[in-house]
Every structure is written in C-alpha cells, then in structure tokens.
C-alpha cells in the first residue's frame, strides 16, 4: 500500500493536483487518499484502476505536446499577448492576437475530450450570459464553457421587445454591473449594442453576436475547427496561418454577422475569401473588404478549398428577398454535384442551425471526411473557454496580466 501511496503522491506533486481532486477524478471519492493513508482496505481491482488512470493520464500528456510551453514562446509575454479588456469584434484584433486565442484553445480541446472535463481556473467568478436575442447553441456553448472552468454561470433571457423601450438597455446593463459579474456575455439584435454596453460596465464583455455586425467567437471557432481538420490531413502550416486557402462563404451575407467576422478572421490568417449570394442578400460595396463577390454559386465554388454555407436569416428580413426556399436551393443549395466543382476534398462548414434541403443537402452535411460541422460545435466550447480564461486573467491576478497597456 505504501508503494501506491507514494505513486499517488508523486503523481499529484508532478501534476499539481490535490489529493482530494485525485480521489474525485479516479473514484469519485474525495477523501479516498487520506482514508487510504489512514489504513483503508482496498480491492486489487481498485489498485488496478488507480494505476491505469495514472498510466493513461501520463500517456495522454506525452502524446500532446504541452501547449502552454509553445504558447509562451510564440507570443508576447503576459497581458501583452492579448491587451483587450473585451472581445467585441474580430476587426479590433491583430493577427497574432487571433493566433494566441486559437493556441490557448488547444488545451481546452484536450480537456473536453477527457472523461472528467473540469478545471477550476475560474472558480468563484460569476459569468452572466445576457441574451437579448433567442439562442440555443451559442448560449449552451457559453454556459458549458463557463461551467467547465468552474465559474458560476447565470443565464439571463431578456425579451427583445423590452430592450427597445427607452433606457431599458442601459438600465439593464447597469443592473448587471451592480451585481458584480466578473464577465458578461452578450447577444443583442442591434449592431453595435454590445460595444455600447461594454462602455457602461466594469468587467470584460464578450460579444456573442450583435445584430448584423460581428460574432467573434464563431469566427474563432471556425478557424480552430478548420485548423484541426487541416492538421489531421497533414496540411496545416506550422505557423498556424491559412495562407493560400480559398474559402467560399455562401448564403445570406447581408444579414450575417458570422460572415463579417469570418471575412475579417480568415483574411487576417491569410486566406482569400469569396462571397456568394443573390444580389438582394449581398451588402453594398462589400468588395471594399477585400473579398471576391459572386452571384453564381458554380463560379464561386470553382477550386475552393473550404465551402462555408450560411442559413437564410428569415427573422431579419424586411420583406421578401428570395422567391421560395425551393428556388433558393435550386440556385444556391450545396449538393454533391456542386461540391464536385470545388477542389477535391474541399472542406464543408456550416455555423448552424442548418436548414437541410435549403442551403445544404443532408448527404453533404454528413460526409464524414469532408464536413466538419459537428467539429465546429465541439471547438465552440473550447474557444469560449479560452476567451473566458484569457479575458478574466487580469481580474484573477494571473502573473503578468495585471499591468501594461490595455485597450
């Protein structure tokens, strides 16, 4: 038994883990180690279980190079790596800041693949998810991200209608601020609303989508999912950039904040972006953002390495923009035949929710080697964990994150 106790002690010391945490992780029994030391009898199967856990844990550590080390080498130290209080838009970020968030997310991708997906980095912090617009997946993703980091997560659903009445938005914001949240995640139906709120609160604000403006975490998770797929194929460049990659974004560009954030993010990482939509759903002078504009899907697909499909945002449409979903599918639906026009093995993406049979066919969405739509959802949690972790470092007094220039 002393051998086992020594092994456990060594393991805990090496991995900076408490004995109660070890007991909880392995056997879901917090006082296990201290009871063992006090002479508790255990079965040989339990000993095996403990040894297997230690073995597997160290093996997985060895397989994945510790990302922390690589992160510290490539980016400015401490808070200079990400000198922003809030995450409002991709447009406000430098390329190396985007790369930093993507690198930071890798450790959470790993954690999320463990049986026990928990880290107490944000223990004691309160995160408020203030969603002024309906959301299922983004809200869930942020909630899971906060909880896996050990924060107390509170969700606030505010009906869109109540916000439009005079001062209510600012008043709501002041209320949230008075409750001493440590981070606020906001989704709002009006462009610029999250930035407006951020000016009025004292804690970091994360934009979970503001009107037709930006949805920064979506663009980051898309980049992360794309990076993982390319790495799996051995096509990922060592510097984490997408230089030379041609990405076609097709769908309701006009109403899409996902498109705007992705244009900025993909371009910052070196990719070229093509947009495709019927004229009524293409924003005016979007060429000024450095994209190629297409109205014919077949042309936009020609040789594309990545095809990102967007849904028709009927809830934002003021009047009729397309004759019918059937006709839309006829011109802009991603079918197997159309996908063949893109480069061989082109990757298919969709931020969800999908309207199968409208912008994308079921069999395309489910192509195992090509579609990374479910991976996008997985990466969403990791990227949001990274954002919450990085943005709260100053408050948590993580060393190197307290001082310096802050924008």
């Amino acid at each position, binding site marked *: 038994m002393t051998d086992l106790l020594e092994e456990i002690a060594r393991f805990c010391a090496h991995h900076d883990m408490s004995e109660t945490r070890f007991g909880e992780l392995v056997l879901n029994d917090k006082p296990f180690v201290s009871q063992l030391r006090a002479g508790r009898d255990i079965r040989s199967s339990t000993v095996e279980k403990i040894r297997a856990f230690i073995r597997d844990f160290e093996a997985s550590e060895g397989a994945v190079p510790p990302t922390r080390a690589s992160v510290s080498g490539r980016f400015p130290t401490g808070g200079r790596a990400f000198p922003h209080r809030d995450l409002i838009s991709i*447009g406000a970020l430098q390329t190396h800041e985007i790369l930093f968030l993507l690198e930071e997310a890798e450790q959470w991708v790993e954690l999320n693949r463990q049986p026990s997906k928990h880290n107490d980095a944000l223990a004691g912090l309160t995160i408020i998810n203030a969603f002024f617009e309906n959301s299922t997946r983004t809200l869930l993703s942020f909630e899971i991200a906060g909880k896996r980091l050990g924060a107390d997560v509170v969700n606030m659903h505010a009906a869109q209608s109540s916000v*439009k009445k*005079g*001062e209510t*938005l*600012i008043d709501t914001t002041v209320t949230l601020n008075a409750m001493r949240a440590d981070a606020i995640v906001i989704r*709002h139906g*009006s*462009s*610029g*609303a999250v*930035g*407006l709120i951020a000016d009025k609160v004292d804690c970091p604000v994360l934009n979970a989508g*503001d*009107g*037709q*403006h*930006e949805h920064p975490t979506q663009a980051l998770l898309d980049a992360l999912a794309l990076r993982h797929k390319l790495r799996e194929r051995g096509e990922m460049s060592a510097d984490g950039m997408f230089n030379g990659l041609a990405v076609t974004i097709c769908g309701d560009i006009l109403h899409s*904040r996902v498109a*705007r954030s992705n244009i900025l993010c993909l371009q910052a990482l070196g990719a070229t972006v093509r947009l495709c939509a019927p004229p009524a759903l293409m*924003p*005016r*002078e*979007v060429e*000024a*953002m450095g994209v190629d504009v297409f109205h014919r899907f077949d042309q936009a697909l020609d040789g594309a390495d990545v095809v990102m499909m967007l849904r028709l945002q009927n809830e934002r449409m*003021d*009047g009729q923009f397309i004759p019918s979903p059937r006709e839309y599918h006829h011109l802009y639906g991603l079918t197997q035949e159309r996908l063949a026009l893109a480069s061989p093995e082109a990757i298919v993406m969709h931020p969800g929710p999908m309207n199968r049979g409208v912008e994308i066919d079921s069999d395309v969405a489910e192509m195992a080697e090509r579609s990374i739509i479910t991976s996008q959802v997985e990466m969403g949690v990791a990227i949001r964990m990274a954002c919450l972790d990085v943005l709260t470092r100053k408050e948590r007094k993580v060393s190197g994150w307290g001082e310096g220039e802050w924008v």
Partner: protein
Amino acid sequence: MKQVTPISITGGRIVTSDGIVEGNLRLVDGLIAAVGEAPQDEDVLVDAGGKLVTPGLVDLGVFAIDKPAFHFGGITRAALMPDQSPPLDHPARVRFAAQSGKPDFWVHPLAAATAALDGSSLAEIALMRDAGARAIATGRHWIADSGVMLRLLQYAAMLDMVVIAHAEDGAISGRASATAGEMATRLGLPSAPAEAEALAVARDIALAELAGARLHFRQVTTRAALDLVRAAKARGVPVTAGVTPAHFMLSDLALAEYRTFARLSPPLRSQQDREAVIEAIGDGTIDVIASGHDPRGPEEKRLPFADAEPGMAGAETLLPMTLTLMRDGVISTERTFDLIASNPARLLGVQAGALRVGFEADVAIVDAEKPWVVDSREMTALAGNTPFDGQPVQGSVTALWKGGVAVAL
C-alpha cells in the same frame, strides 16, 4: 413688446441681397426704416464695431420650438414641422403653434399634408392656412401613394402654398438607418441605397410639373437627386431644394463607433454625395440651408444605432457651419444669408429675412470670425445631440433684435 424708440445700428457691414452696405441700419416701429442712411437725433445708437449686420435667420423645418437655442443661433423665425404630438393637422393646433413663440420668436407652422400624417387622406389645408400655416409639409416621410401626392400638389397650387416634401422612397428606405455602402456594410447597419432619394425627387418633380405646384424638398443630399433638381430648375419648374449642415459637413464616416448623434434622416451619405451637396450650394441648385433642429434626449439617443431616433440639435450650429462655406469661398457673404434667411422667408411668404426697407426688423450682429467649440454638454438646446460635438467653429451672434426689440442672449 413693441419697439418704442428708433434704433440705429452704426459702424457695421450691412448684408443685403444686393451686396454689403457700409453704414447705418435704422429700425423704427418694428420695421426696417432705412439702409445706409445717417442716424437721426432721437435714435438709440448701437455700434456694430465693424461686424456683419445681417437679417435674423429663418429656419425652414424644425421639429421643436427651442427658443434659447434659436436665439443663440441668431434665428428669429422658424417653420415648425407638423410632426408634433398631436400632429399639426387641425386648424386649432396650427393657431396655437403660431402663437407659441411670440413676442421674441415667431413660429410659422407647416400644415400637415395628410390627416395624422398617414399619407392617405388630405388634411384641412385651407382652414389651417387661415389659422396661420405658411406652407404644407409631408412630415418626416414621403407620401407613398402617388395619387394622393398629385391631388395634394393640385390643391396646394390652387391655394398658392408651397409643398415641403421629404425626398425618400419609403419602400426602399424601410427601416434603414444608414446609406448602403462600405461603412454600413462594415458596421452591419440596416441600410438603403442613396437612390431612394433620387426616385422620390423624380416622382415629385413630375407630379409638381403636372399640377403646376410649387415644390420644396426639405433636404436633397445626393448627387443624382441634385442633378434632377438642377435639370427641373433649368426647364422652369418651380422647385427648390434645401439641406442641413450635417450633409455638407459630414459623410457616413461619422457613423464610426455607432455614434447615434450622427443618426439622421435621411442618413449621412458618401463623401462623393457630400461633395455634390457643396457643389449644389455653390451653383444655386440648393436654395435653403436649415438646421433641422430636432433635440433628442438620452432616452432616444443612448441606444444601439439602429434603435435610436434620427435627428440632431442643429439650431446653434446652423450659422457657423454655413459660414464655413463662405470662408471656403463656395458662396459669397450675401448668398450665405440668402440661404439661411431670405430664401426661406420668401418660400414662407413673409416680409422678413432680408434687410430691406419695410421688412420686419429682425436683425442680428454677427461676429463671423469669433471662435468657439461645440460641446454637447454645454448647449442651450433642449438636448445636446449634435454630430459636431468637440468641433471648433467660427461665427457667433453677438446681438439680436426681433421686430426692433432686443433679445437677451
């Protein structure tokens, strides 16, 4: 409050439509008695000290009566838009509004073209005219129904009243809060193409020609629409055009960071259109510069951009902003005051807005060079929603008379 003693303003540069007169301006019994003649013995003398002596400004199309702001800006008369609560679509309300500023400020109510400004049924325009309405206005929106617009113009022609139209095709502009272009695209703002204005202008000019009516567009802000107005004037159509300083001072770049003080109706345009407006002021296509004074408090402006109400508090900055055009050599001094006083007065059919014998003694002394900084927190207006916040400007009113009676500034 009638003028008791005659006043002579001496030592000023008197701005008349025919040019600048060095000399003395004499005000008697609330009217202008003499321009350029020597003062008489019983006159109270006021030394203008070489500054400009100008007509009091006439502001065509304001949304609120905000006397301190108007007086600060040298405005002595304003045409009040019918978009009030309740709207000016009834003779009694027009009569009340017409009295509301007296004696030191005159309000000229604009009759609502349609009942409740709904754009469908004509209001009692003749009764409102006799209650004091000086012109007809469609309000903040155009009249979508071309049949209604035609009948309105025919009726207005019969009554010999000007129709002041809002030039924006409502079906295209919809809920837009910006002009379609790179700025709106980057900010993700609901936007409408600038051509929504040209469409409305083209239709209304055609209908006015058909009806033989006098038509004034309160704001024309795009090159295409200005070209249409220019062409119509050339073939003799009695059409006039106005603009507010925001559209010749600012382009849609001012929308950056979602500054709601720059949320206007019509929205700010591209730099090319801004240049076209300046050109049109220079060549005479634009006849009137007005403040569009529309004070909005924080509950209407401290909101996300698209949710905020449009409008700016412009009364205090109308004069200095227009003077920038004079300093830039776009317009002469005389023409400056034609744009902000004589032309709007002529459209309203009032004997004011010019320093001419027999006209109302609405007079300002203007120090055209005096520098000051626009500060939204220190404005005299009901609210400080100015897109020019923090901007240094030149030109301010140092003395003001309404009907020969000095106004305290």
